[in-house]
């Protein structure tokens, strides 16, 4: 009998193979890499939000100890190096295009936010570069700063190219049909919500190490990137006008991104430029303050919502008017996040016959705002799920039942929403039911009463979210203004002994691809996972790929790997047919063996691999030797994870502290490859969502100074802020890809903020509190309690 080998395939909670190095502190990050003769870069940054630069005096800095060179925007301009580009633009309501002002690598005549880079100092040590920068004298003519984005249109103009500080004024949906639906509604629920501004706070700050090789005119850049190939494309083709082949980009171990490491930032471009200028490798690593000041921030929306209901409490129409803050310059995806990644999600899990949304993207004297875990979808989910809860209260329905009667029915899929997307598949009642069961929803009032005896206000809140990830297909992306493709690549190399090297265009910066992708290959080929190695993050090794963001790695990147493995299997069958002297059609592949159907004649996968590389007995006349296949996979649609999260909180009226006492998350991510990794992603996402809902808030003062620029003032969630999460799943496999998978990386951060705020409002509802903004800090909650009591006393 054949020995059965245990395969850690799809569905197995294998421990992450990459964790050994990370948990023992042996990860190799960009800042861990050093080159002989390297110099350190320090960026002098503006400490005013909006000013003309009258004069920059670099004389004293140039002669400071250890300083190799001091450069300003004029030096960059003299070499005609371009700035970062915008990767996606949208048309405006009036037919005009998105306004795209230039973003110079170093300031040219004007600074536009606190942190805008003015000059770079290169020195032997980081300390010397910093001390040198201190000797640069910048003479500013200060201009009135624009900080309040809702009224940015009335402020001083930040860019000549952007009238009224409005980058775009975009719409989606049928305005008239929605107006008609709302005017015919029995009830209109109105809500104004704010999605607070967040700082991404990846554990590893951004870093770059650029080298120039003057023998072959080529550059190598190590950098903290979620997508090294896109970084190479943008730097080579758009900024430096050099062939891509002359630039190698390596994103080695990267310690978290959450979106903030998608974009090409000015610092890495300046390092590349300077490495040639001074003929030495140039290294730069942000300190935490620079990360707060210059990493693209997230969210920062204000949404006005109108939801119309008929006499049966069914939704008849939805209108959302949004103003969002995009900061001082347009970043790579800052335009698409509040538009096509936000407006298109407004139907949620609900059958809404008419939807219209208008979004205005404003320029302010704050750092750029771009994608942050969820990117547009948390904003859509927050406004919709807050409104659903408010509507249920207003009509006196249980919020769960109100959602249920408005869900898209199971038999309505594929479902065409009124905001462009077509959901391929979904089934929403099961995860609502299961989440309610997990948290024991039906006995909540008993727990509320028990808490009240202890003097605590207990509340429960629901969020039923939809998520669209694995952005695709490329043709649609292009039609909507995207300037990139949205496929993913994989190259699967079978080595002569049957071990596998997988080269993926995706990038892992915490997601566990080395494990998950190996599981897919092991499962499909019936070989042990240990025999599969996953290579990513180096443009010289991996095929051109789009990288990792928007929960696309598995749905797009994993599917590409799956397709490449299918090609390997097809070719292997041909080889096996030859070796076994059978027809290709009679070869079955199962458990790692190619078998002639109905016989005991078989060849193991390893034997086929060896035959391919040592083709002594091989059909060379019809088949190439070797066993290596590429796949480029362009999905036909997004994948649509959905789920219901229910939060339970207790509020201490004496202190205003909100304690999250229970959490049930029931998600439909389609098929799970590694449930343990999925659970970790859910935990991390919820933790970030709880951070947004209770703790985090990036605050600029009226002069544009970032007051929350350290962990003393910007409050991140800690373990003791979180309950033990109850995590469960329902499964409707995606119809878009062969693996039946969806994305799970952002769902927790999308689902959780409205669940939590709904729970806080529910807790305080006996006091008459109907609104609460994020973050629900103790001070804010305490004040809401006091105000409600003073109202009651009147």
């Amino acid at each position, binding site marked *: 009998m054949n020995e059965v080998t245990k395969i850690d395939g799809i569905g197995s909670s294998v421990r992450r193979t990459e964790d050994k190095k990370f948990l023992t502190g042996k990860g190799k990050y960009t800042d861990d890499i050093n080159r002989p003769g390297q110099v350190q870069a320090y960026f002098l940054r503006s*400490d005013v939000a909006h000013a003309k630069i009258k004069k920059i005096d670099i004389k004293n800095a140039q002669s400071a100890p250890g300083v190799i060179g001091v450069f300003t925007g004029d030096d960059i301009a003299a070499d005609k190096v371009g700035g970062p580009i915008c990767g996606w633009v949208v048309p405006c309501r009036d037919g005009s295009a998105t306004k795209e002002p230039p973003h110079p690598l170093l300031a040219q005549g004007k600074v536009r936010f*606190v942190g805008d880079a003015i000059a770079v100092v290169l020195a032997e040590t980081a300390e010397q570069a910093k001390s040198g920068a201190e000797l640069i004298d910048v003479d500013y003519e200060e201009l009135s700063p624009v900080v309040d984005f809702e009224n940015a249109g009335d402020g001083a103009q930040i860019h000549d190219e952007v009238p009224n500080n409005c980058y775009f004024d975009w719409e989606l949906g049928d305005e008239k049909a929605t107006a008609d639906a709302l005017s015919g509604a029995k009830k209109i629920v109105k809500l104004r919500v704010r999605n607070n501004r967040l700082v991404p706070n990846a554990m590893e700050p951004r870093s770059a190490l650029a080298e120039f090789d003057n023998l072959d005119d080529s550059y190598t850049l190590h950098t903290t990137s979620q997508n090294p190939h896109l970084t190479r494309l943008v730097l080579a083709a758009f900024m430096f006008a050099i062939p891509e082949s002359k630039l190698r980009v390596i994103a080695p171990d990267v310690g978290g991104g959450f979106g903030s490491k998608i974009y090409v930032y000015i610092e890495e471009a300046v390092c590349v430029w300077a490495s040639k200028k001074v003929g030495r490798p140039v290294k730069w690593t942000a300190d935490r303050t620079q990360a*707060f*000041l210059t990493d693209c921030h997230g969210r920062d929306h204000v949404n006005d919502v109108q939801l119309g209901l008929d006499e049966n409490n069914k939704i008849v129409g939805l209108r959302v008017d949004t103003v969002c803050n995009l900061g001082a310059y347009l970043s790579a995806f800052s335009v698409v996040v509040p538009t096509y990644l936000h407006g298109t999600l407004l139907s949620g899990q609900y059958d809404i016959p008419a939807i219209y949304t208008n979004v205005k993207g404003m320029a302010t004297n704050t750092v750029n705002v771009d994608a942050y875990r969820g990117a547009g979808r948390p904003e859509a989910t927050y406004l919709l799920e807050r409104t659903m809860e408010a509507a249920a209260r207003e009509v006196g329905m249980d919020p769960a039942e109100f959602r249920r009667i408005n869900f898209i029915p199971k038999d309505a899929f594929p479902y065409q929403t009124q905001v462009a997307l077509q959901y391929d598949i979904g089934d929403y009642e099961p995860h609502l039911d299961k989440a309610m069961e997990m948290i024991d929803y039906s006995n909540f009032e008993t727990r509320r009463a028990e808490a009240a005896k202890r003097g605590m206000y207990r509340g429960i809140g629901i969020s039923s979210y939809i998520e669209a990830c694995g952005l695709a297909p490329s043709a649609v992306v292009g039609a909507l203004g995207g300037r990139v493709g949205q496929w993913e690549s994989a190259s699967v190399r079978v080595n002569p002994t049957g071990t596998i090297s997988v080269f993926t265009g995706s990038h892992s910066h915490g997601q566990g691809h080395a494990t998950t992708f190996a599981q897919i290959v092991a499962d499909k080929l019936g070989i042990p996972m240990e025999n599969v190695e996953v290579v990513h993050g180096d443009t010289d090794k991996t095929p051109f790929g789009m990288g990792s963001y928007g929960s696309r790695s598995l749905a797009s990147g994993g599917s590409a790997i799956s397709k490449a493995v299918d090609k390997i299997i097809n070719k292997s069958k041909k080889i096996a047919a030859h070796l076994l002297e059978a027809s290709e059609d009679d070869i079955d592949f199962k458990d790692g063996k190619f078998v002639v159907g109905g016989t005991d004649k078989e060849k193991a996968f390893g034997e086929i691999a060896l035959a391919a590389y040592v083709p002594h007995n091989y059909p060379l006349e019809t088949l190439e030797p070797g066993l290596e296949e590429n796949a480029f996979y362009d999905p036909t649609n997004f994948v649509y994870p959905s789920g219901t999260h229910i939060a339970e909180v207790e509020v201490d009226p004496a202190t205003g502290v909100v304690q999250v006492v229970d959490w049930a998350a029931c998600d439909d991510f389609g098929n799970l490859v590694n449930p343990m990794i999925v659970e970790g992603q859910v935990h991390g996402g919820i933790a970030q969502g709880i951070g947004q809902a209770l703790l985090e808030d990036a605050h600029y003062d009226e002069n544009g100074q970032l*007051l929350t620029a*350290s962990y003393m003032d910007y409050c991140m969630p800690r373990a003791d802020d979180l309950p033990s999460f109850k995590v469960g799943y329902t499964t409707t496999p995606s119809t878009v890809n062969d693996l039946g998978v969806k994305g799970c990386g952002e769902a927790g951060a999308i689902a959780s903020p409205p669940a939590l705020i709904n729970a806080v409002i529910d807790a305080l509802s006996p006091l008459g509190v109907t609104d609460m903004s994020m973050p629900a800090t103790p001070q804010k909650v305490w004040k809401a309690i006091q105000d409600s009591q003073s109202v009651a006393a009147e």
Partner: protein
Amino acid sequence: MDIKDSYELPLPKERIWAALNDEEFLKKSIPWCEKLERRSETELAAEVKLKIGPMSTRFTGSITLSDIDPPNGYTITGSGKGGIAGAASGSAKVKLVEAKDTSSTTLSYEVSAQVKGKIAQLGSRLIQSTAKKLSQNFFGSFVKQLEDMDKPQ
């Protein structure tokens, strides 16, 4: 931010006014002042070393006197650059009001301050308390010096 306070001194208004315009006297009232030089009737150059929260920074800058209304008061405005730590500016409106019986004078001040750059990013929560402490230090020791001088030797 705005900080207000007042002191009652058993001294005539002119006496206090003279001290307010004597840079040597002012300098002695600012222990953290390393340099104070008069450049003109209304301008002084200053170098001060301050500790704000985690940062110890030397500021160089200028001080100008305006709204001069002898002997009733003036506005003293200062702005300084602290290099990489950022910049700070502030002004104090100082008023002297003599009691009807001329036995005492009330010195009152209103301070407003602004910070930029790293000081704002790291020390914003500490600015109010630091500015308050510095104002109290300055006017406190200014008043104490006047009182000491007035004591019989």
